[in-house]
């Protein structure tokens, strides 16, 4: 099993030691960073620090060295954002800091996204993604979108503060089979349930599989709300999307 000392970047070691308290999060992050390249760790550290110039530079260097775009995204950018998300949740940092980290993320993704889009993978499905009404946080959603696109999904991003009608209109317009909703606040989580109810009222529920995610969301909550699935992070989101597509195919063949 990996240990904190296996992580080469000192800043990352300090972040995990000082700010992470939940055992499963500590274990997951030690595992993640201990097996990633030093350059990826440095990138994550720069992202956590809100240093968009360094993230930009390191991303370009990594890609020039031949490191795969997906690896750069996963181990450099997404890994860093994971720590940011935890610190924000625990009120260690606030919105200004998160905005700076998001800006750094964007700087890195500016180099990665064109590569992922040009990857020539056949689209596997269409997904509508949005953060629910009243919630202005999009970091988790944006990570999922990048991962989904990287895995071949066509994703329509509705942004933040998305109303039930906007979700429904988008599903109908794009004939999407999947809808993903994100919430970062416990106060906005109920809007997921309201959206699902809106789909029922509008007789659209059976036309789409709905998945939910976000820091305060749990499997239990997702089940109570009537969602089809819950993804605990961006990686799980992609797995879930693929699984739900399989379910749709089985239902159609039945």
């Amino acid at each position, binding site marked *: 099993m990996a240990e904190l000392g296996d992580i080469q970047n000192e800043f990352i070691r300090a972040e995990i030691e000082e700010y992470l308290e939940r055992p499963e999060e500590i274990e997951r992050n030690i595992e993640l960073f201990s097996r990633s390249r030093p350059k990826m760790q440095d990138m994550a550290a720069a992202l956590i620090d809100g240093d968009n110039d360094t993230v930009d530079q390191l991303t370009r260097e990594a890609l020039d060295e031949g490191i795969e775009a997906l690896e750069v995204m996963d181990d450099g950018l997404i890994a860093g954002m994971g720590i940011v998300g935890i610190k924000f949740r625990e009120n260690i940092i606030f919105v200004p800091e998160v905005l700076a980290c998001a800006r750094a993320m964007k700087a890195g993704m500016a180099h990665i996204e064109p590569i992922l889009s040009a990857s020539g993978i056949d689209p596997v499905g269409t997904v509508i993604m949005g953060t629910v009404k009243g919630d202005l946080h999009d970091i988790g959603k944006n990570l999922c979108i990048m991962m989904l696109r990287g895995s071949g999904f066509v994703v329509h991003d509705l942004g933040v503060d998305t109303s039930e*009608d906007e979700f429904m209109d988008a599903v109908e317009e794009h004939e999407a089979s999947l809808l993903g909703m994100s919430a970062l606040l416990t106060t906005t989580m109920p809007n997921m349930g309201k959206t699902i109810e809106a789909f029922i009222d*509008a*007789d659209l529920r*059976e036309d789409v599989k709905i998945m939910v995610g976000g820091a305060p969301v749990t499997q239990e909550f997702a089940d109570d709300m009537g969602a089809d699935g819950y993804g605990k992070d961006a990686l799980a989101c992609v797995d879930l999307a693929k699984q739900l597509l399989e379910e749709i195919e089985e239902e159609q063949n039945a």
Partner: protein
Amino acid sequence: MDRHFEEISVALYCEVDHDPVYRVHSYSQKVGTAERLSFIRDAMAVLGDLEGSGDAQLRFSCGHPHEVAVKRVFLEACKLETGADLTARPSETLDKKSGLTMIVQPDDDGIYKVAATGDGKNADRRMKVVAGGLAKLGEMEAVDDTSVRFPCGARHDALVGLLLVRAPNVRAILREDEAQASRGVLAAPSQQN
């Protein structure tokens, strides 16, 4: 806000004496306000199966509040221009989504059953949606997938006819209600879009 009469603000108040009664009220001092309120009351009585009570008040004959339904009746009455024709709505409506005609038939026990006729598609699904819409808009109880009744057990045929018009697309109504409720709420600069 009443768009048919100088944008005065009209409110529906619930006053509980013996049974719940409703009063249509406005603080406006403009000439013609009393006549406008009188029309709205008359419209509510015809469209929603309410009866006059006491001093310019309205109530349901069953004595129950039917709070959600009465708000819907009030809002629909306010959408009419003064002098508009006041007839109870029929118990059938065209469902634009499917092309079917949805019909609601009551029985003697106050149970309203939704049926569909015509050449449209997805009849079963649409009947369930309409029944669900009636339940939501009128706070009615589901008896089965396509039948509903009021909690008081009484028949309110005109009211059901009014709700039926909106039931196939209850989302539009709820959207309207939500938009209306959020108007006039002042947000801090950081909360504004």
